[in-house]
């Protein structure tokens, strides 16, 4: 029976609940804006990664190379677009 118990999924589910609870603390506790944002960003990205790997089976098939490559590529593009936008609209704006 031990092999049949979906340990990875159950642990993953509990962990995702904990992440949600931690993110909620930002609302319920008094903390500086910067700290709150860091907590939210960290929990959000961990949560996204957890969902992808545990519940969306990202690494379980033969084409996991292509899957991870597209995820990384998407993240690179998103981060560069955000940094570029900040550069154009705020940091580099005179």
């Amino acid at each position, binding site marked *: 029976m031990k092999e049949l118990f979906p340990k990875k999924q159950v642990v993953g589910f509990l962990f995702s609940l904990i992440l949600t609870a931690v993110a909620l603390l930002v609302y319920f506790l008094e903390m500086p804006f910067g700290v709150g944002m860091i907590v939210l960003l960290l929990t959000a990205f961990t949560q996204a990664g957890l969902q992808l790997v545990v519940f969306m089976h990202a690494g379980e098939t033969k*084409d996991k190379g292509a899957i991870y490559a597209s995820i990384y590529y998407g993240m690179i*593009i998103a981060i560069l*677009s955000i940094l*570029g936008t900040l550069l*154009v*609209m705020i940091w*580099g*704006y*005179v």
Partner: protein
Amino acid sequence: MEFFERFAIPHPSPLIYASMVAIGLTVIAIIAGLTYFKKWGYLWREWLTTVDHKRIGIMYLFSALLMLFRGGVDAIMMRAQLAVPENTFLDAQHYNEVFTTHGVVMIIFMAMPFIMALMNFVVPLQIGARDVAFPRLNALSFWLFFMGAMLFNVSFVIGGSPDAGWTSYFPLAGNDLSTSVGTNYYMIAIQIAGLGTLMTGINFIATIFKMRAPGMTLMKMPMFTWASLITNVIIVFAFPVLTVALAMGTFDRLFGTHFFATTNGGMDMLWANLFWIWGHPEVYILILPAFGIYSEIIPTFAGRNLYGYKSMVFSMVIISLLSFLVWAHHFFTMGQGAFANSIFSITTMAIAVPTGIKIFNWLFTLWKGKIRITTPMLYSMLFIPIFTIGGVTGVMLGMSAADYQYHNTMFLVAHFHLVIIPGVVFAMLAGLTYWWPKMFGFMLNERLGKWAAWLVASGTIVAFFPMFISGLDGQARRMYTYSESTGFGIWNMLSFVGAGILAIGFVLIVYNIYYSTRYASRDIPADPWNARSLEWATPSPTPAYNFAITPEVDSRDAFWNAKRSKKSLFKGGYKDIHMPNNSGGPIIMSAIFFVLGFALIFSLWTVAIIAAVGIAGCLIYRSFEQDHGYHITADELKEMEDNNGGAK
């Protein structure tokens, strides 16, 4: 009556009334014709509900040609208005509407469906697949695009066309400064068509990754398939930005939000930023398939394999990444400082390097080749010099300090037309001529085709080179008239003449299609150009299932090598083929999207809610629908193959 007043044209003229009559008569003629010849059933069964990638490709093709003429008429009107100083052919408002619709129609409703047409038709054949990965989604993509295009075209007879430029910059495009519903049309029609494009992107990535013939590794794919793969990756990453920007713009216009307003914390320039985060990759979405087409045509007619296959792939991958890093060069004068501008200047110049690699690879492919100058090859040869001039002036524009001089002048207009026309239009016309026999089973007339190619190329040169000069002299783009003392008159007259030559070229292409349909021989081989890739291994026109036996590939130019060594690509016997059923779902759902879009544009909330419920209904119905397709049995297949000569 009050209800109907909102549909009136805010700024009518005899030209628009004439077009209303013309549109009305055309619609009546089409309906009457279909009824008289009893073609409704045929149209519905064979075309409107089809999920066959080849037929969808052909429908994209005809939509694109239709839109090419709509956008072309806009262009001629603009050139006619500017041909002489102080002209009164169009007034300022009409001129604004004409250049806006010209831009949108040409980019989103002409160039995009044209590349979709060739991608749809060619990619599954080139990789030895029976169809795309999701045939019904493909039909939905087409119909969403089509309904978006039709919705946009309705604007100039109902409610008024958008007039804030194809870039539709806020705050000009906001409610305060654009009071007609025109910009609503822009936001919603492009949104609907864009959804279709995004689905195509996902569909083709899945197709190319998952459905290649056995033995065709990524590095053995034909170059057009590679170009399509990279293009679709860019689509999937770029189009969501447009979707979001358009949604925010729609909210600003319809629901009074302030994303792009100048007050209440809005950032008007954020629109320009988001628009170009999509807009610059969009340029490469258009150009990469064109590069792929040239990479198919040049080796075929030079009789040599493509020089530098790996560097071609590598340069496209680099272009796809760099295309996301250069967008701010579209608004160097927006107000950011020298530091930010320098960064984007450098990335812009960097992108010229992989593009240059590709140009040299084509030239090296020609080197010592046995060149046959056919119509597709002629377009490719005309493309290289004209595109290079367009590209080099782009590097000039990319230098941010100098750009303050060129920004928003006719110099810019000359630059982007000289890259887009040879880059996209020549490639599409070349691809059209090249794959025409595969699509329709006869060839286009070579003599007429070459005449058209020369006319289109010389028209392009005569129309756009003078703009470099008038632009450097200070003629701003989008100016509806100018005084005689500016001295712009002669250059604009020359441009008008060039536009006329271009128009004659396009008329000749249409005449060629008519002439060849009537007189060309139907008795042509399946591989009339002596080409290199798998699509030519199928009979012309290709049967619905494409390949009776799935081909097995062991090299880059597998079909070419098989021809030379007289081996067959098709091993084994016939097996049952599983085919998808046709479906009315896509066209019905897209038609409801059209109604939803129209209702949103005119703020008809009840209709909009009913349509939205209808769309949700279509989705729910599809989720529970049982549709297992049908099978062509091996016996039926054998009979069909014996009739059309069998796989080669």
